[in-house]
């Protein structure tokens, strides 16, 4: 699509990828919405499903909008992101785990 590149920049996405990303994220928003508004699943299953949808949507944004695959090597940005996500997970899961008091 975008042949017109000065300075030999990488190809920062194409219209197609943006449109696919957009459609996917809309779909991934509507599914949990419908599930929740109509209480279609049992509670735990529902929570898990909508969290998975959110994560999928994050992945979609990463690949189709933020172009995580592109860019120069080594991919310091990807490494930082992964480490950051690990820490975020630790913060959230750790807090919940620790703050459940008085239980074995």
């Amino acid at each position, binding site marked *: 699509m975008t042949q017109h590149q000065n300075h030999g920049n990488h190809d920062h996405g194409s219209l197609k990828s943006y449109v696919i990303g957009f459609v996917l994220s809309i779909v991934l928003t509507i599914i949990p919405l419908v599930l929740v508004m109509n209480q279609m699943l049992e509670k735990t299953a529902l929570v898990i499903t909508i969290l998975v949808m959110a994560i999928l949507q994050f992945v979609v944004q990463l690949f189709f909008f933020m172009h995580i695959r592109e860019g120069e090597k080594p991919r310091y940005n990807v490494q930082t992101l992964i480490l950051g996500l690990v820490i975020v997970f630790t913060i959230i899961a750790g807090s919940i785990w620790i703050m459940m*008091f*008085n*239980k*074995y």
Partner: protein
Amino acid sequence: MSGGKMLRQIHFWILAALTTVLLSGCGSEYLVLNPKGPVAETQYNLIIISTILCAVIIVPVLALTAFIVYRYRDKPDNKAPYKPEWAHNTALEAIWWGIPVVIIAILGYFTVRDTYVLKESPNKEVAPMTVQVTALDWKWMFTYPEQNIATVNHLEIPVGVPVHFQISAEAPMNSFWVPSLGGQVYAMAGMATELYLQADEPGEYAGFSSNFSGEKFAHMQFKVVAKPKEEFDQWVKEVKGTSPAMTKEDYNELKKQGLSEKKLYSAFPEGLFEEIVQRYSHGHDMDHVMKKQPAPTGDKSKETSQETQQSTDMSNMHGMDHSSMKH
């Protein structure tokens, strides 16, 4: 100054300091090193084990340091080998990744084992007695749900009986610590933490608040008296006979900021402790601690007639979920 001389001095001081600590370690003022009950005993053993395990590696490394620094000092006549490019040796490096792993594994085993052990009563033969501890600004209130008495800054317990402490606060966070009997646990508003302690020898033990809680924190200490079961029962009777009962007003007075003398009460408002916990509860499930309790606490016994009148105005306390505490 030469390196050797310097090192000898460093070593002299470290050793001097360590010996002071260790030699005097037997002195009775070293509360932690003179355990008077099974919990403190367990912890004492862990302290010894961990000291030894650490020493096993630290002492040789200290010696090695001294040796290397002495041997390879830059002296014109030093005949020790000099290999400026020698910078890698897989076997050696494997050793020093490996040895600490082993030590940590052993230490970890003991740690985990005792962590679980100390969550339980240290003595399975004898049924534990419950004492509720409330940290106030800057004093400790103890309520005995089974005996239905209460004390301030003074705790008496029977020897040989595990005591199940339920600990909360109506003040900034404190920590309940009786080093001779065992380690501490935090006292926090809106939560009930637990701690088992047991005294094996009669005696008087020092109790501390070890979490900073403001101006008069340094004086927030209490005394623990452990005595044989019969004497303890005798003491309970005495308190019941001679001391006033604690009223709601007394409690409100007590919780105001300030220090307090030792105090004894022949009774306390029913469910006082639970009420204190519930007042600040932040959505935590307290069942686990509460259900170990024999019965709703406080003055519901009809033995001493003068106390009954107080229990009536306690019965319609709001904000309490009695059902969750019934068993």
